[in-house]
């Protein structure tokens, strides 16, 4: 005869099991599609404005401002999508995703700082594309496969930016942060729930 205690124990055990199964299954799915497309539009606008700046310092400032706006858009869109599909942004998969993505981003920020101090602005475009791509690729290991594909595309553009004339840098940035994000943003919105 099983009393209420063993039954409750089993219930608690079941709940733990459910939680585990959900956590393990939850690849990070809160990649914002529409939000990503908006980030792309921000980047396209930034590319246009940046190309018309009189100095490389102001070109850099334009892109940094755009990055801040895009990051805010991305984060808000991510939080909204997470809430809509009923997942947290603090769960295991979200944390792994964030960590995988954050490491190359920190490297990118540090390298940008150093390039700014020595005045090597033309290295920035390929560095940003390569490191952003790396971040999306490593973060994407904990997400749906298309995210990894985005990372690879960014890295390919980074390599293209290296082998082409430095003056093309801004155009590669427009193609990557603008074009790729708009196209994949629409794809994710269409096939991965918004």
């Amino acid at each position, binding site marked *: 005869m099983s009393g209420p205690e063993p*039954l*409750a124990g089993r219930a608690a055990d*079941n709940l733990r099991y*459910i939680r585990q*199964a959900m956590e393990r*299954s939850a690849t990070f799915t809160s990649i914002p599609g529409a939000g990503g497309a908006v980030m792309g539009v921000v980047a396209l606008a930034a590319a246009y404005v940046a190309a018309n700046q009189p100095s490389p310092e102001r070109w850099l400032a334009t892109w940094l401002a755009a990055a801040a706006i895009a990051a805010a858009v991305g984060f808000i869109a991510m939080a909204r999508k997470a809430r809509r*599909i009923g997942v947290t942004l603090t769960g295991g998969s979200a944390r792994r995703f964030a960590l995988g993505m954050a490491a190359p981003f920190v490297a990118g920020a540090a390298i940008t700082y150093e390039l700014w101090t020595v005045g090597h602005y033309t290295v920035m475009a390929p560095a940003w594309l390569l490191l952003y791509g790396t971040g999306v690729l490593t973060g994407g290991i904990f997400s749906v496969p298309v995210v990894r594909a985005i990372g690879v595309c960014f890295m390919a553009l980074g390599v293209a930016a290296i082998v082409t004339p430095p003056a093309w840098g801004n155009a590669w940035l427009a193609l990557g942060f603008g074009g790729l994000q708009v196209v994949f943003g629409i794809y994710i919105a269409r096939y991965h729930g918004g």
Partner: protein
Amino acid sequence: MARTNAARRLTLDARSKVPVDSKSGEIATNLDRLLHDRMRLGIVSALAAGDERSFTDLKEALHATDGNLSVHARKLEEAGYVACNKTFAGRTPRTDYRLTASGRRAFEKYLDHMDALIKAARRV
């Protein structure tokens, strides 16, 4: 009709193993027997955590074998808790599962039951 019969047969099969208890017995017998199986509960939980999961994803998440997973997924499908979508990615067949509305309701009900069992034990 066939689906309903299959679901009923499952429910009856499982009922023979129901633990009966004087205090929380009623709660225990009202449990969804279809979900009271570990693997099936795992599948539904894993699907409840996201939108769609491939057979491979589920297998990894639940540390299940192909046979075990497909048998239990089939039962959930027959009961209408899970919908399955078979496609081809190139030449490799791919099976995606998602939770149906009734599957989600059953899952939520099951969680409520677990909650009630734990609360009942605390009152003793």
